[in-house]
């Protein structure tokens, strides 16, 4: 079992990195977590984003946040991605399986995965 001593070790490691991290965080991934989103599978999608961001070492520039209803319930789970200068990209009917591609191609590669966007769905 994970002990408090292990948590303290994580704290010390994080504190050593703090100086590096300030002023960053210019990409935001926002997952809709209202009833409609949760019922449609937003929880595993959120967790997959958190895991992929950590796994690819993106924590310093990418934040994953939760929001309420985005207002397009029939397309849930809905994920909005805000990058530096670009406008917002809305991914719809997301699944945990689709997350890796969004991270690799869009967040890391700068190329929107248009087949998952709302435009491809209507």
């Amino acid at each position, binding site marked *: *079992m*994970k002990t*408090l001593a*292990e*948590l*303290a070790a*994580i*704290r010390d*490691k*994080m*504190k050593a990195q703090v100086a590096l991290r300030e002023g960053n965080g210019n990409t935001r991934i926002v997952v809709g*977590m*209202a*009833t*409609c989103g*949760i*019922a449609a599978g937003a*929880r*595993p999608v*959120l*967790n997959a984003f*958190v*895991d992929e*961001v*950590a796994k690819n070492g993106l*924590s310093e520039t990418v934040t*994953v*946040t*939760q929001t*309420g*209803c985005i*207002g397009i*319930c029939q397309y849930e789970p809905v994920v909005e991605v805000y990058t530096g200068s670009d406008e917002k990209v809305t991914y719809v009917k997301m699944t945990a399986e689709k997350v890796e591609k969004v991270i690799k191609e869009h967040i890391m590669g700068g190329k929107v995965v248009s087949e998952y966007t709302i435009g491809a769905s209507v």
Partner: protein
Amino acid sequence: MKELSLNILDIVQNSVKAGATRIEICLEETDERFSFWVRDNGCGMSEELLSRVKDPFATTRTTRNVGLGIPLLTLAAEQTGGGVSIESSTGEDHGTLIRADFNKRHIDFTPLGDIVSTVTTVIQGNPDTDVIFSHSAGEGRVELSTPELREVLDGVSLSEPEVLAWIEENLRGQYDQMRMF
């Protein structure tokens, strides 16, 4: 909802939306009963809203004029012969307490599912909120309190991926031990 832990996540989102800085999530079960309650110190509901809240046409939201969360939970509880009760206050001690009771043996009982994922999701989204979680089943008990973890973390955020991974593994370890009872 496919799992009760998703209903719990959804009910906690109401507390988040109500501006709560402290949210308690408590699960209690016996061989026959499963109960949980969520208590928050958010803005609370007026008596008028509270009286309408189990009705799917009651909501203060503007994007859609029906609230689904509480009606879905009520349905899930009532279909097992249980029910939902809500107390809320907008006064000085503002906050809300929502409690749901289920008959575990009923064929329509929805299994709890991945409650650990619900707890980590709540903490990930609300690292500055005090989250107090406990689950007791017979002799076994699982508990986690973010104010206590924050004391160890000394300014490092609870939403750090490595901290969240620690929380997840800690809870899963506690559940492994609880199952040995």
